[in-house]
């Protein structure tokens, strides 16, 4: 039990540190690569929340798809080799830190005010030892079949649209 908690907080710390690294780095490539650590940490958190299928999906979609796309984007918008790009200006930086801190303050205020609700909720949580994969498969083909089809069409449209937009000569 203790080992599981240590692993969870390790991955949580990894996620937050990598996210902070994206905020403070000045190199685009380093930012995109530390996004990899964020996705891995979030995926580990899904495992601890009993969502194994979502963890695998996170790895396949984000690490295998979105991250590779972003790396291609960095390469295609690269002016010259080894150039470090100005990622932020000082006034923007202060504005961003202020807004991020104020949002964090609002969220933590909400959390502290409603702490009793969350704590009482986590006591009666029935930790399911069985995998949720079976239930996900059945739900996708019965209760959520319409959403499933619509999302499939959305992906097809995104694929065709991306190929059309990116391939068009200006």
């Amino acid at each position, binding site marked *: 039990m203790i080992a599981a908690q240590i692993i969870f907080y390790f991955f949580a710390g990894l996620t937050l540190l990598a*996210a902070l690294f994206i*905020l403070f780095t000045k190199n685009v490539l380093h*930012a995109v690569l530390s996004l990899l650590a964020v996705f891995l940490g979030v995926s580990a958190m899904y495992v601890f929340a009993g969502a194994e299928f979502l963890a695998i999906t996170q790895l396949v979609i984000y690490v295998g798809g979105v991250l590779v796309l972003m790396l291609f984007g960095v390469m295609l918008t690269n002016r010259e080799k080894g150039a470090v790009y100005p990622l932020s200006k000082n006034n923007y930086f202060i504005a961003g830190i202020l807004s*991020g801190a104020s949002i964090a303050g609002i969220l933590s205020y909400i959390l502290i005010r409603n702490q009793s609700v969350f704590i009482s909720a986590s006591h009666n949580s029935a930790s399911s030892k069985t995998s949720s994969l079976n239930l996900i498969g059945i739900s*996708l083909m019965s209760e959520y079949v319409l959403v499933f089809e619509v999302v499939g069409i959305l992906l097809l449209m995104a694929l065709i649209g991306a190929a059309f937009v*990116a391939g068009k000569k200006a």
Partner: protein
Amino acid sequence: MIPLIHYIVISSILFSIGVAIVITKRNIIVVLAGIELILNAANINLVAFSTQDGMIKGQMFALFVMVVAAAEATIALAIVVQVYRQFKTSNLDEINKLKD
């Protein structure tokens, strides 16, 4: 088990960092990375709350959020490539014309 509130605290911090990235960074790719952070923070909340009931509604919703995020990233990167071809820059402050 990990208490529910720890998931919520982590996702709140991740969301705040994502907002700060979207506001401070001027490179298109890094702003997109910030948007992905925000979507991931929302997904952590959905998955954490879906452990509370026997049904898996939160997990299904997170799954569809992921698919929409992937579609968004695809289209956004295509637009980024087109914008770079037009303006020869990936700095959001220098892209301020709808047409020449």
